[in-house]
Structure formats: structure tokens, C-alpha cells
């Protein structure tokens, strides 16, 4: 009952400061679609069909396929966008758990997603030029 005080909860007039959220929300939404559509196919493919020997996909085939146009698409749809989706969820989840350091959490969550993205693109790019 302590959180329900009769104290006046006055709302300070604040400058209308545009939120950066649309950017993160757009990445989150795009990543959500990827999570729903692409990730299950990856699990099916790499988690079941391939280990069960139902399809034949050798390392060299995978290597050739990844270091091309489709590899870039794969990176975006299976790693980068889902990464930002997950980061957004974790960030808001921590907010719901009343973790207060909003700025720091934002930097850590999106920073990690950004780092994973850079790493993925870096690997793809070095593979392309080598």
C-alpha cells in the first residue's frame, strides 16, 4: 500500500523531446517478422533435417553460399534483425523489472546487437574479398 500515497502526483511541464524509439521500434518490428518467419526454418534446417541426414548440405556448399549475395540476406534476416529484436525485448523487460539505469541498459542492449551485427558483416566481408 506504500506506493499509493495521497501525495499529489504533479506532472511537470516538460519540453517536448522527440523519442528515438521509432528507430529501435522499426528494427524490433522487422526483427519480429524475421523471428516468426525465418528462425523456425533455420531451426528446422540446421537443427533437424541436416543432423538427421534428410538433406545433404556440405561445409563447402554452405561456405560458397554464405559468401555471396544470399549470405548477406541471411545475415540480416537470421542474425542482425533478430539481434535488435532481442535487444529491444531485453531492454524493455529490464525496465518492467524496475531496473533504473535506462541509459546504460540502452547502450548495453543495442551496443551488443550492434557489435554482433558488425562482427557478422565483418566475417561476411572478409570472406567475400578473400
Amino acid at each position, binding site marked *: *500500500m506504500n506506493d*499509493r*500515497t*495521497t*501525495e*499529489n*502526483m504533479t*506532472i*511537470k511541464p*516538460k519540453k*517536448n*523531446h*522527440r*523519442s528515438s*524509439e*521509432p528507430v529501435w*521500434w*522499426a528494427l524490433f518490428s522487422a526483427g519480429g517478422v524475421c523471428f516468426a518467419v525465418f528462425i523456425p526454418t533455420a531451426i528446422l534446417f540446421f537443427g533437424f533435417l541436416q543432423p538427421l541426414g534428410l538433406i545433404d548440405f556440405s561445409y563447402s556448399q554452405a561456405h560458397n553460399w554464405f559468401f555471396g549475395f544470399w549470405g548477406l540476406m541471411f545475415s540480416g534476416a537470421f542474425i542482425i534483425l533478430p539481434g535488435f529484436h532481442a535487444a529491444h525485448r531485453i531492454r*524493455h523487460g529490464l*525496465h*518492467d523489472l*524496475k531496473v533504473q539505469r535506462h541509459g546504460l541498459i540502452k547502450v548495453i542492449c543495442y551496443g551488443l546487437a550492434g557489435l554482433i551485427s558488425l562482427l557478422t558483416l565483418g566475417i561476411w566481408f572478409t570472406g567475400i574479398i578473400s
Partner: protein
Amino acid sequence: MKTIHITRYLPESSEIPFVQQFDIPADDSTSVLDALNYIKEELDPSLSFRWSCRMAICGSCGLMVNGKPKLGCKTFLRDYQENITLQPLAHLPVERDLIVDMDVFLTHLEAVKPYLISDDSLSTEPNKQTPTQMAKYQQFSDCINCGLCYSACPQFGLNPEFLGPAAITLAHRYNLDSRDHGKAQRMPLLNTEEGAWSCTFVGFCSEVCPKKVDPAAAVNQSKVESAKDMIIQLFKGNL
């Protein structure tokens, strides 16, 4: 007979709220509001609660019934087991018994300029509108300002500066109205962190809304509007 446990708060006699139990004769037509009126008339006249219309129109009888925001006049004892707990609406400061201070909620409603803003204030022409144009916002105009959605919203609970479901819905309702020209004045507030962007699409607001306004839909459509606004301002070089 039903047993009702009411969280009471009488600031002049005790700093601490306490729970009081009442036994109520009930039939199929007894609403929670009927039960409260029975208590006030027959058992304990000191009980305080708000009500007016008894028909889900005025929006003043909101309270928590077994932990869920409800209108007292639209909730019936027949739908509950033996024991029912009544508490004041969550997330708002309690003034006395089941009466909460709605000031924050009203300030938020006011902040979104919930009225038609014309581009030509001198015009005496009537504002015409086709049924199709009206259908775009009609559902969002059914709100009775009961505040149940604010009690349901965990984000408002965490940060009362969040505009909240009903206020954003009201802003969206006027933004969708063909007679209105005030969208540019409302967007700056919706674009803020405390505007549409504090919402994490929990959706409980739409579940508890007694008028099926679907505030969660309005808030999320407002997010799309805000994102579009950002892109437009970016291209115009205003960001």
C-alpha cells in the same frame, strides 16, 4: 449470501488501510455497485465510493474487483464465487476508501487537446462529414473516461508521466477526424518518450475497457503515426 472484503482507507482515523468484511444478500441482478449501496445504507454509512449513472455511461464507479479493474455497475456478483475483494483503482493515489484521485488522468486527457481544432477559426460553415469519414474514429470516441485502462497499464504504474491509453486514444481520435486540423499540434507530445513510446503493447487496457474502445490499437496506430512523422520531418530537414 456473498462475502465482500473491502480495502478501506480513512485517513483521519488511521494512516494504514485495512480490510473490512461484509455479508451481502445477493441475487442474479445484484451488481457490485448495488452491493456497495446496500453496505452504505444498511451496514456501514461511513463507506465512500463514487457512482452516478448505474448504466456504464458516466465512468465514475471504477474499482478493482478481485484484482481486476471493473465498473461496479457493470459487474455482477453472480459471476463470482463466495468471496469477492474490492479495492480502489490501482496506480492512482487513494483519497478515501474506494475513491481515487483522478487528477493525473485528467491532466493527461487535457494535454492532448481533445477538441476539434479548425484551420480557419472565422468560418461559420458547418463541418460536414460522411459516414465513412466518421467510421474511421467512431470506436475511439466511445471512451467514458473511467480510467480502468490506467489501472490496467503496467507502464503507467511504473511511470505516471506516461500519457496513457485513454489520452493517446483521444489524441488519435481527433487526429483521425476529417474535421480536425490539429494533428501537427498533437504530434510533438505523442512523439515523446512519455507519449506513445512508453507503451510496450501489453494490451491489458483493451481487455479491461468496458466500452470496447480498444485503446491498445489506438496507441499502436499512434506509434505508426509518430514513426511516419519522424521520417517526414527527417526529409524536411527538421530533425
